[in-house]
């Protein structure tokens, strides 16, 4: 009951400009955002590759937390299953198997770092400028609420917006390509006897 009221109130404001309120939910959001961004930043800057993977994990969990905060629980759970249970484990395994996990990565050239930082910052500034100038309007289309039942119907349905599952199955092609890449990469390894 309580939650629904809050949801309705939130939905009306795209950006609650001006009114400085300090509800628990707001604090949690800022906390999650901070965790996500700081971990992401650490993930790309740390020179220890295993730690980078762990920071990435925290960033992904932070994003899952934001999904939870948005009350999109199903997507949050899927985010955790796919990214944390799948991709991060995959990355950690690939680190274990291919890298000298304990060693630090070589220090990057300052020029490259500067260039990358500048490029990213410019891009960020540009996009933020665009966002600030653009006024988003609510669409008249009713979006699908991402509940389990809805998503299931979308996946297997044959009406408008259906056929999601066949589309997702096509992504197996990508997986096949990925595995093919690995196989080819393994073969090209020079065989020294």
């Amino acid at each position, binding site marked *: 009951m309580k939650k629904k009221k809050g949801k309705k109130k939130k939905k009306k404001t795209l950006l609650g400009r001006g009114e400085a309120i300090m509800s628990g939910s*707001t604090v949690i959001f800022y906390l999650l955002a901070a965790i996500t961004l700081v971990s992401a930043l650490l993930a790309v800057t740390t020179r220890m590759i295993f730690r980078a993977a762990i920071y990435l994990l925290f960033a992904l969990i932070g994003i899952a937390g934001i999904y939870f905060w948005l009350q999109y629980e199903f997507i949050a759970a899927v985010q955790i299953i796919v990214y944390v249970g799948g991709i991060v484990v995959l990355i950690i395994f690939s680190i274990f198997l291919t890298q000298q996990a304990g060693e630090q990565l070589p220090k990057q050239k300052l020029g490259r770092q500067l260039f990358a930082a500048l490029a990213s910052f410019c891009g960020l500034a540009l996009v933020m400028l665009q966002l600030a100038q653009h006024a988003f309007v609510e669409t008249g289309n009713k*979006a699908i609420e991402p509940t389990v039942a809805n998503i299931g119907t979308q996946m297997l349905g044959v009406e408008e917006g259906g056929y999601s599952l066949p589309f997702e199955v096509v992504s197996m092609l990508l997986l096949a390509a990925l595995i093919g890449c690995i196989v080819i990469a393994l073969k090209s390894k020079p065989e020294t006897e």
Partner: protein
Amino acid sequence: MIEPGLYHMLFISTTLFFIGVYGFFTRRNLVTMLMSVELILNSVNLNFIAFNKYLWYDNE
């Protein structure tokens, strides 16, 4: 503190995206580059979710 809304989400997602871009440019290691790509992908996901959440017509 301002109550979070669409712009907050977009800010997070944009920042994540460019953090990923920064990582992708600086890193010369395939695994770390993959990690950066993951960040970029996640920022896009967050965008989708945010638009779904805030930009649909409320007929309640």
